[in-house]
């Protein structure tokens, strides 16, 4: 069977990511393991947003909320002496799923600008909640005493083991996401995005499907939050700042909305550009900004849209 250029790009990308720790070792640049792990964590967050934004048409401008909840689940438990990773990460996933359920239940009844504003407002609430709790460092945040513990499985202090775990989760989510959007469930949310009155007229009640997608997306992003705080070893309400939500959305749009692979590429390009440009000048955003504008203007389907994909009809 002939492979589409996009499938080949995916294979090449996965191979490259898999080889990063090896290359870093050879070049004696351990920093790259750190950088690409960070990229993959944000790729997971962007991928989770794309599920509802690209396929469900839900413009969540508060996806950083789930990063924050995942991070706080880990940080708070560690602060109270519970470093068990299974427990922490379960709480991260469950907690963000519950918050997504609450936010989604309200926001999905609205659309357009109202949807954006409600998701933003909830995230701001959580952000200020984070700032106000002095016990957990308030405004300044706090150091994570130890990374999540997975006795008998792996040690996150080992940079390479942590790296491959994140890669594994990213690949798993790419697979899950692809199955999800192509399955009956995905077809319903895509149909509702395409034409909601029509979807209702043929008998679908889109609300519960959209809410379920919103919860799945929140849970995925919550796990990204748990990974992120282990990555930075520092818990801060900044994880939930609205500019963070904006960055995640930028990654999705930059890479290609509604493609799953695109947001991963978007996260890589965004964070690599940030890394390169910020070493060069403190005003790196002056360069990044126009670049994003150009991509949005001239590559409407994002960077991944430049790679042909024969076998993908339907929205």
């Amino acid at each position, binding site marked *: 069977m002939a492979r589409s250029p996009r499938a080949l790009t995916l294979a090449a990308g996965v191979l490259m990511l898999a080889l990063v720790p090896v290359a870093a070792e050879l070049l004696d640049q351990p920093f790259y393991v750190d950088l690409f792990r960070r990229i993959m964590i944000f790729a997971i967050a962007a991928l989770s947003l794309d599920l509802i934004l690209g396929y469900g048409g839900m413009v969540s401008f508060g996806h950083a909320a789930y990063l924050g909840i995942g991070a706080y689940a880990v940080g708070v438990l560690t602060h109270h002496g519970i470093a068990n990773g299974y427990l922490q990460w379960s709480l991260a996933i469950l907690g963000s799923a519950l918050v997504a359920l609450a936010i989604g239940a309200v926001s999905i009844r609205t659309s357009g600008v109202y949807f954006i504003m409600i998701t933003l407002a909830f995230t701001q609430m959580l952000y200020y909640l984070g700032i106000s709790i002095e016990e957990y460092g308030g405004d300044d945040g706090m150091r994570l005493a130890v990374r999540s513990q997975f006795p008998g499985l792996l040690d996150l202090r080992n940079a390479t083991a942590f790296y491959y775990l994140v890669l594994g989760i990213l690949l798993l989510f790419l697979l899950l996401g692809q199955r999800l959007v192509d*399955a*009956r469930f995905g*077809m319903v949310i895509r149909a509702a995005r*395409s034409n909601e009155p029509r*979807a*209702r007229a*043929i008998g679908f*009640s889109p609300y519960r499907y959209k809410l379920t997608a919103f919860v799945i997306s929140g849970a995925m992003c919550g796990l990204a939050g748990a990974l992120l705080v282990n990555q930075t070893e520092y818990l801060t309400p900044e994880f939930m700042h609205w500019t963070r939500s904006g960055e995640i959305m930028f990654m999705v749009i930059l890479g290609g909305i509604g493609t799953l692979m695109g947001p991963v590429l978007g996260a890589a390009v965004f964070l690599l550009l940030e890394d390169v440009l910020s070493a060069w000048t403190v005003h790196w955003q002056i360069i990044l900004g126009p670049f994003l504008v150009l991509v949005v203007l001239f590559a409407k389907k994002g960077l991944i849209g430049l790679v042909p994909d024969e076998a993908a009809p339907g929205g």
Partner: protein
Amino acid sequence: MGEPLLEVRGLTKSFGGLIATDRMDLDVTEGETHAVIGPNGAGKTTLLSQLSGDLRPDAGLIRFVGEDITHLGAPARSMRGLARSFQITSIFKDFTALDNVALAVQAHAGSSFRFWRPARRERALREPALEVLRTVGLAERSELMAANLAHGEQRQLEIAMALATRPRMLLLDEPVAGMGLDESQRMIRFLQSLKGRQTILLVEHDMDAVFALADRISVMVYGRIIASGRPEEVRVNPEVRQAYLGEDTLL
């Protein structure tokens, strides 16, 4: 003849000061093609939207197959066998024609909370969908994006989606609107082929289509039915002639 399939009693809907549906009664019998006609602004689409569940009436009762469905939403009514087409073509434009119809099949083929198996490879969805496309004459166009179909084909696709839900009754909002002569003739012939097998409530402006299709005609003016009966009765009704005077002379 038993109970009517659809019974409307005292249906009322107003927008601000405008009464779009005014204490309206209407019966549609199983198997008939019933056309609702009326001058522009008579409230025909508003009526259809209340029947399909897209619009809530202010008062009145809608009974379908003996069940009070007045307070059900559009999806629930679709599940009970009411299917509508829209005046302004409403399809999933960024999906293929086959996808559009397969989605309609899917909505009536068990739970859609299925997360793993690709829906486009489910034969239980694709085959019935292709069969319906064949009946409306779109089988060769099945892999085309719906957005790329001609206007008339998009209207056919909409009817195909409605039929794919296996409805007990079709609600058609101006099915030949905006069509060329050839296209509308084809659509009329197709709808004629459904006659007898499918109960149809038709809202239509095109009098050729109405007289070619309708077993019964109800004439709506200012939100009320002023006359109802067989086409030849309605044609000679003085009140109807009065209402249409100055609009057109087709009657």
